[in-house]
């Protein structure tokens, strides 16, 4: 590697938010004229690293060299002045202004205090032609498709004469055709001497568009590879393949699989963006087994869980719990049918300003003995909370503390305690150990096994392969809203699942 070819060099970057370390001693360098992929699961620290380069976050330690000069980038303004542009997943645009006005927003021009729309229009026209970015400058942002809005975002960067372009998961909002056009545009940029950083969690994209790939995992750099010298399988292993730390499963204690507790038939659901996110998914979960849904984040898991728990409309298909059709039933009805739900974010299950007593009664507060004739029985609620707190080992001084003061692990324990201390037949657990420390993680995994051994059916959605492998009796892999394969744990290994997760059959 020639030293003078390096345009950006980030050395020893560390950044933590609160207690979690998002970037841990990361070193990364971008060469002139390359497309460099940043690959990793959600939460691996890709976006944080790039936000640091773009001046949105300040690193706790480490330094950044742009064109061999050490720089202290404190704002996007400074980043742009250094020739660094970034296109975020969430576009930074004013919907009620035109494309042209959005592009020149915040820029100075020669005719101040007047706007120089004519000059800008001309320049924009040239850029559009050069980079094959066809957008009507007079169109209003709100009229545009997502693909067009992304082009506007790229034009904004190009208009500011950047030489380094950071694209954060640019294809996540695009159709396959739009993605192809984007790739073509990226190649034009590179041919004209720009360097591109391409953030993605999709292996296929990393393989097809990049020259080199840096893989991040848990905030650290795992490896940097030249794309032409690596394989999809190797990248999959680097990205998700942490060592399986412990296998908790004690098969001896297993009860034989019981009757069908959850039956899902050709389920379809639509995401908030209006895209079909769950496509004809069918599976069963029996009492006394844990069925895992593995997959890279954002492949329809969220929508699937919401559709099963009544939080999102089912477009077509059926959801049957314990013989009762609960398709499109209200959350309350599903809950009372014996379904526990651990949502993917524990803050979606707890009311931070409420005490543990109130949080633990949230699901059944309107039924006896917690209330009668519409009046709460505080004493019963308090006693019940005390018992549950002791049983689930929630670390708290007493039951009247506010939920928001607890640590993540204890918050999750409160959620699980509430959702499993009533009589349930089925537990739907979405990423139950996300963001927790090892101790809490182990405790919760043990709890899931205990519940399974007690005959409860568990659907476990997780992006952690070690978790899936150590807990599940059967494993389903989801990719782009479809189930790609099913296997018993005995047949499963990381490589095989990783490939299915990446959308290529094993």
């Amino acid at each position, binding site marked *: 590697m020639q030293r003078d070819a390096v345009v950006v060099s980030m050395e020893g970057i560390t950044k933590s938010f609160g207690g979690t370390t998002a970037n841990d001693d990361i070193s990364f360098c971008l060469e002139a004229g390359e497309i460099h992929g940043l690959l990793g699961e959600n939460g691996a620290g890709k976006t944080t690293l790039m936000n640091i380069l773009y001046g949105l976050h300040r690193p706790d330690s480490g330094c950044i060299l742009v064109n061999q000069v050490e720089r202290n980038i404190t704002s996007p303004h400074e980043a742009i002045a250094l020739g660094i542009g970034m296109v975020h997943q969430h576009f930074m645009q004013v919907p009620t202004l035109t494309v042209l006005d959005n592009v020149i927003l915040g820029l100075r021009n020669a005719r101040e205090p007047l706007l120089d729309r004519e000059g800008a229009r001309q320049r924009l026209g040239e850029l559009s032609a050069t980079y094959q970015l066809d957008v009507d400058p007079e169109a209003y942002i709100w009229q545009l498709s997502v693909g067009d809005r992304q082009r506007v975002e790229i034009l904004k960067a190009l208009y500011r004469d950047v030489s380094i372009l950071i694209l954060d998961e640019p294809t996540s909002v695009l159709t396959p055709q739009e993605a192809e056009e984007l790739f073509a545009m990226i190649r034009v940029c590179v041919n004209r001497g720009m360097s591109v950083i391409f953030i993605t969690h999709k292996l296929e994209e990393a393989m097809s568009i990049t020259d080199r790939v840096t893989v991040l995992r848990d905030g650290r750099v795992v490896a940097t590879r030249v794309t032409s010298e690596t394989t999809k399988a190797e990248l999959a292993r680097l990205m998700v393949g942490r060592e399986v730390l412990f296998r908790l499963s004690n098969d001896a204690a297993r009860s034989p699989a019981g009757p069908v507790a959850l039956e899902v038939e050709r389920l379809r659901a639509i995401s908030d963006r209006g895209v079909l996110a769950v496509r004809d998914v069918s599976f069963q979960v029996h009492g006394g087994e844990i069925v895992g849904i593995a997959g890279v984040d954002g492949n329809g898991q969220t929508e699937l869980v919401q559709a099963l728990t009544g939080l999102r409309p089912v477009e077509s298909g059926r959801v049957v719990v314990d013989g009762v059709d609960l398709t499109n039933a209200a959350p309350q009805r599903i809950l009372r049918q014996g379904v526990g739900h651990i949502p993917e974010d524990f803050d979606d299950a707890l*009311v931070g300003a409420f005490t543990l007593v109130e949080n633990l009664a949230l699901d059944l507060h309107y039924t006896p003995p917690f209330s009668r004739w*519409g009046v709460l029985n*505080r004493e019963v609620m308090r006693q019940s909370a005390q018992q549950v707190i002791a049983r689930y080992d929630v670390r708290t001084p007493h039951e009247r503390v506010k939920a928001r003061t607890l640590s993540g692990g204890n918050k999750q324990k409160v959620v699980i305690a509430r959702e499993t201390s009533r009589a349930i037949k089925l537990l739907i657990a979405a990423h139950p150990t996300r963001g927790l420390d090892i101790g809490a993680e182990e405790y919760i995994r043990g709890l899931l096994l205990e519940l399974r051994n007690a005959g409860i059916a568990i659907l476990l959605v997780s992006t952690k392969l070690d978790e899936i492998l150590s807990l599940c009796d059967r494993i389903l892999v989801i990719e782009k809203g479809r189930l790609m394969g099913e296997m018993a744990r005995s047949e499963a290994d990381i490589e095989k699942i990783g490939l299915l997760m990446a959308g290529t059959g094993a």
Partner: protein
Amino acid sequence: MQAYGALVYSAFGSVNGFAETMVKACPLLLAGLGVTVAFRARFWNIGAEGQIYAGGIMAAVVGIYITGLPAVVHLPLTVLAGAVGGALWGLVPGYLKARLKVNEVITTLMLNYVIILLAGYLIHGPMRDRASGITISPQLLQTAWLPTVIPRTRFHAGILLALALAVVVYWLLERTVLGFQIRTVGENERAARVAGVRVGRTIILTMIVSGALAGLAGAAEVAGLQHRLVDEFSPGYGFLAVAVALLGNLHPIGVVFASVLFAALLNGADAMQRAASVPVPVIFVIEGLVIVLVSARFFRQRSG
């Protein structure tokens, strides 16, 4: 100091001064409690003014046109009509928000003008007292009047009702299933959904309660004070109620004190001008400052 002394003395220093303060505090307290209930569910009801008018109109209709009832029936019926009127006027934006996701700030604000103008139409048209030279409605029958509690003052029974309701609202929010659900929806709507709380239903019930409380303020003004439907019988109590609720920290007992404070400011303004020649607008400036500072604190707390 002299000015503030005059303010305090005029508000609390005499029986009549105290009574007049409480007369003003009554609608502020009732509407403030209504706003409190809505805001606890994070439903930004700024339509208390309209709900006051709806309550006042309904109370006037029942108080004027239903005849031949003894006071023990007629008076409760009149007051109840006020609550129903306010509840209906609150139900509209509640329903629109719960079922059609229409922004409540717009609907509650706009509905104020609809009902205020409707009240004007009634007074100038169908409900006008033809015996009177000015545009007011006929008097309510005496059987529908809220009795005077302190003789030779305007201190009427509606004030006692308002104070009692502050305790009831506290109990509702803290000790009942509905109150628990209102607070849950307000604090974390997603968690409410996950836990099976029917959010839409809760919002609608919240607005029925909220509107009913503001409607009672209207009924108390009509049946306790004016004894007629008059143009602009509420000089913006419903808007001031938002400030009262926020200053009371959305706590029913806090709202009691906040309403009395604002009422004292309203009444004390004239006394201050007489005693220390402080112009009345200064009081309005103080009020404005209180509103700005309190809402700044409130919204910073909530978003932070």
